[in-house]
């Protein structure tokens, strides 16, 4: 593979959109081309970090750009990791960080802030992540409770998605027992 100019993966989703497209890695950067003429190109100079995790639609490659925005590409198969690892190492000299997910089904764990994401971890594995940049409000409905609101009842469904084809998260409420501990330095992640 080392002499190939580019590596393609078909049937890949970009973000939460419903259309499939072709994901391509090349020496100059990576890109995705899908339905409705949607194209995304990320130049090699913009690439900061790569992450691999399990998502709902198969496995996901996350591309963190230098401006700290994240692009998510879903629909990979678990065996695609080896090929991706090799290509990303050769083309961009970057490693892929593999993040494990928790599927235990527990509702207790630890909330961690990673950039603008709130990660909910169970036994040090990611259970879910909330993009706080998309939050529209937060409030304190009760003692030791914090609610984060992402979608208002009157709001239309996201662009390009049929409202019947989506189960959309509107809000999350956390219960944080005890008093707030003194702020300590961020531990290891």
């Amino acid at each position: 593979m080392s002499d190939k100019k580019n590596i393609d993966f078909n049937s890949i989703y970009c973000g939460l959109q419903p259309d499939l497209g072709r994901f391509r890695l090349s020496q100059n950067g990576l890109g995705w081309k899908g339905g409705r003429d949607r194209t995304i190109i990320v130049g090699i100079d913009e690439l900061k970090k790569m992450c691999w995790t399990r998502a709902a639609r198969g496995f996901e490659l996350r591309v963190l750009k230098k401006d700290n925005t994240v692009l998510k590409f879903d629909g990979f198969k678990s065996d695609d990791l080896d090929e991706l690892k090799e290509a990303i190492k050769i083309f961009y000299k970057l490693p892929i960080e593999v993040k494990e997910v928790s599927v235990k089904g527990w509702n207790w764990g630890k909330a961690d802030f990673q950039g603008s994401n709130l990660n909910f971890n169970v036994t040090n594995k990611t259970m879910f992540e909330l993009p706080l940049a998309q939050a529209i409000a937060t409030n304190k409905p009760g003692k030791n409770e914090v609610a984060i609101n992402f979608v208002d009842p009157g709001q239309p469904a996201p662009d390009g998605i049929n409202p019947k084809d989506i189960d959309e998260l509107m809000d999350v409420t956390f219960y944080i027992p005890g008093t707030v501990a003194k702020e300590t330095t961020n531990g290891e992640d």
Partner: protein
Amino acid sequence: NDDGEQKAVFRKFESYRSEAKLPREVRGLKIVVDKKHDSIILPIYGMAVPFHISTLKNASKSDEGDFVMLRLNFLTPGQAGGKREDMPFDDPNATFVRALTFRSADTYRMAEIYRSITDMKKEATKKETERREMAD
């Protein structure tokens, strides 16, 4: 440590051993009720996130314009509710997900999901009661 008669113990549970066991339907990015694994799998920003039925307190459904909203309340410490006072928790000092609200314009499917969830909860409560009676 004390007489142990009244002290309820936390019963361990687990939805799935590994992510490979998640049902295929999660690809639809919609709520999936998996009876075989006593779990509700919720789509949260592209991830398939299971919650075991033992974590659920109750569910409620309401209409809002073209949408149906489904609210799931989970069991956490510090909840009012009389007999729940002795509820044991694995780690009472952890951060808990107390509630999640979802919406969809597919009213028929949301009604089905609501029904399956409440049925699953009833079934789980019944089993738990039977287990306690057997233990007595």
